[in-house]
């Protein structure tokens, strides 16, 4: 491998890996934001408005870095991988264009509304906008994974004159690895979002700040987190079955299976003795065959069935793969523990557990990066499985020196950007959700009424609070929602929205 190829690979891995730090956080927080906005729409409460605003700020800061680092990716295939671009242009460009046209516009437009337009649109429009931002982001993930999956399991094309020509668009979109890859990746973003939200909530509970907000956020995060993290091993298993069928050498490298064999063991932890061609590990005998074929006689294709030049690096894959699984299981256990404490109503007093949650935040991101390495390094030495080698795919006109220059600039800019992002996030978290200042007994009444509204909403739906308003109105003969909001702060911003929410059918 020449220096130019190696540097181009490092640059691509670095820039996309960096982009992929922010994408799972913003997608996952997007779900948390939608849930918070939904709650606000139903209750109209000041606390829920503040919560939705808080998640919006975090989402937007992360999204901004995602946008900034994503822009270069659209062009990175042309700049560094010109030969690849010419080979796959007929197939690979279309999903990128679709992603832009159908996702990025909706995303950027409605994020603009969520961020800046709250006073200009109705609460319903605001709520719909949060859904559109989240939905468009997920849709964009779908299309980028369409493109990525095609590199792993190419279909719907023939090779003519040294380039892949499209023959069947549906086969090229819905390749064999798309469904498990998309579900696995999207679910990973939910796990990430729930851990980020849980860490922030745990931080507030430990500091005894914003406790009302934190308790609610933690409950939401734990429910999302336990569902997604417990489902993830099963989704991953589905994906592994697909990999075994479509990219058997990748799977063989994950488990360091050199000779084609039945009764293949499943390693838990260890390393690969590459000269001896065997894993040195704590392993479950017959485990891999049992998992993938449901019987110990299932034959697993080994690495030695293909020439050494067609094999991916085994040691690094063995490590990323097993680490990913280990971290993934840990994540599920943490979330299950939280649900147990929640059900025993001991959550906010379990300081040790809250500390664990606070510091566990990087783990799902680590698992995402490990998973991405597992699948992408597993495809090597191919850039398009079985069709084009990575070493043959680079831009012939770009020199190693040029790539080294841009790579160093990327490293500097992205490092600065990371710390700027961290500072912004810390400032947002330190500032906390901005609940309008509360004062005096009238405020206590408002809180009681507000929780009553929420309960009524959950029992009777949106008509519940409206009936409550009518009852109070008939008793007091005045404008209720105006009356008690006025006592809070002069600028209580959701005043109009609260009564709107109640009055709408």
């Amino acid at each position, binding site marked *: 491998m020449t220096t130019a190829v190696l540097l181009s690979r490092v640059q691509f891995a670095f820039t996309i890996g960096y982009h992929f730090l922010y994408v799972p956080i913003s997608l996952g927080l997007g779900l948390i934001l939608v849930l918070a906005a939904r709650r606000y729409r139903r209750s109209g409460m000041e606390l829920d408005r503040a919560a939705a605003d808080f998640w919006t700020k975090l989402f937007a800061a992360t999204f901004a870095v995602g946008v900034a680092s994503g822009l270069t990716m659209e062009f990175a295939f042309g700049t560094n991988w*010109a030969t690849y671009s010419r080979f796959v242009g007929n197939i690979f460009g279309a999903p990128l264009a679709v992603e832009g046209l159908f996702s990025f516009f909706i995303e950027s437009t409605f994020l603009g509304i969520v961020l800046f337009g709250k006073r200009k649109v109705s609460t319903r429009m605001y709520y719909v906008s949060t859904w559109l931002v989240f939905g468009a982001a997920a849709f964009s993930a779908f299309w980028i994974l369409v493109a990525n999956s095609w590199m792993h399991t190419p279909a719907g094309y023939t090779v003519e004159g040294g380039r892949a020509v499209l023959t069947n668009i549906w086969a090229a979109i819905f390749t064999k690895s798309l469904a498990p890859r998309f579900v696995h990746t999207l679910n990973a973003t939910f796990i990430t979002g729930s851990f980020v939200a849980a860490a922030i909530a745990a931080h507030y509970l430990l500091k005894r700040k914003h406790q009302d907000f934190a308790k609610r956020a933690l409950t939401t995060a734990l429910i999302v987190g336990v569902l997604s993290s417990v489902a993830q091993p099963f989704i991953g298993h589905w994906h592994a079955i697909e990999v075994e069928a479509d990219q058997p050498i990748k799977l063989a490298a994950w488990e360091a299976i050199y000779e084609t064999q039945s009764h293949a063991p499943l390693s838990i932890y260890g390393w690969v003795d590459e000269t001896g061609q065997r894993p040195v590990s704590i392993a479950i005998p017959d485990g891999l065959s049992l998992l993938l074929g449901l019987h110990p006689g299932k034959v697993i294709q080994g690495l030695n069935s293909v020439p050494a030049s067609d094999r991916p690096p085994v040691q690094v894959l063995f490590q990323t793969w097993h680490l990913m699984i280990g971290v993934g299981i840990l994540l599920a256990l943490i979330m299950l523990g939280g649900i147990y404490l929640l059900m025993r109503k001991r959550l906010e007093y379990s300081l040790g557990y809250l500390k664990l949650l606070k510091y566990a935040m990087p783990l799902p991101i680590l698992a995402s990066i490990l998973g991405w390495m597992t699948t992408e390094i597993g495809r090597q030495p191919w850039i398009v499985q079985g069709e084009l080698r990575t070493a043959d795919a680079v831009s012939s006109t770009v020199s190693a020196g040029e790539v080294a220059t841009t790579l160093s600039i990327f490293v500097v800019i992205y490092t600065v950007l990371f710390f700027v992002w961290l500072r912004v996030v810390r400032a947002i978290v330190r500032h906390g959700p901005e609940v309008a200042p509360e004062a005096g007994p009238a405020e206590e009444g408002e809180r009681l009424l507000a929780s009553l509204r929420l309960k009524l909403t959950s029992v009777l739906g949106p008509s519940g609070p409206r009936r409550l308003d009518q009852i109070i109105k008939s008793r007091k003969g005045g404008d209720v929602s105006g009356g008690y909001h006025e006592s809070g702060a002069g600028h209580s911003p959701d005043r109009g929205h609260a009564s709107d929410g109640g009055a709408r059918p």
Partner: protein
Amino acid sequence: MSGLQTTWFVIGAALVAVYAVLDGFDLGIGILSPILAREDEQRAMLRHTVSPVWDSNEVWLIIIGGVLFAAFPGAYATILSGFYLVFMLVFFGLIARATALGLHYGSVAPSRRWRTAFWAGSVIPSFLLGITVGNLVRGVGLTSSGDFSGSLVSLFNPFSIGMGILALALFANQGAAWASLKSTGELHVRSVRVRRATGWALLALFVLMTAYAAGMTGTHAANMVRRPLGWVVVLLALAGIACQQFFALRGDDRGAFAGASAAMVGFVGIWAVGSYPVIVPALDGGAALTAASASAGSGTLKVMVVVAALGIPVAAASALVVYRVFRGRVDGNPRGE
């Protein structure tokens, strides 16, 4: 040359025009930011004229990338790898800009450093996009396999540098027109003044660059004279500049913005009409990359027509939503509360 390839050349040019009109004004706001806004409150107002829309505007650039990749992969590969360092600098600039705008949307007064990042992140990409178009008009060295054979230095020739300055003037003019449309008070007075000045500068640069281009070898100038549409786009550019100054006399900011935008479309039109069907012209008699030689297969182009027919209305509709929600002049509060 098939009808599909022509269709995609036209769609591509139209996308470039839309991008230039829309991102043109927010890049222009960035270029002019140190001149237009002198105090924190004015800076906040100026930033708030673009903060809800700049992201959506920049998406058009991503669309151009995606469409170029899908419809003309040969051109996508050659231009991006050939102009490697130029485009990387464009991206570094846009990253700095996006960060300055995106991470500080809520704060009234970002530090001096971030203001500089916003300014430089607007100037550098604008200038370099002008350099790129300049070279795509003038021609570059190409190998027989369609790869770029020139050097980085060769991209910075007098003509392309002139085009870089023209691009700065165009975007600045568009930015001033947008600022005058959206702002009030002192900022408004100043942006009207800058709009007029950049309008005249634009006219002067246009005459200068036209004279330069007329003396160059290559087919661009000849095509412009030969094709009726060539005269239309030149007239559009001139009429846009004239209208802008005319509406300025009547104090009509909307009319002036429309004039500036028409001029922008005219300039993109001059590039497209003079170039068609060539995408990357070759210097020294090499084989140019054309809409025929650089295009994807007809299967992909057909699929992409369907994608564009469905997707461009979605994109345009959501862009319209954001402009409609945020219509009218802005005040100094960055979050509009």
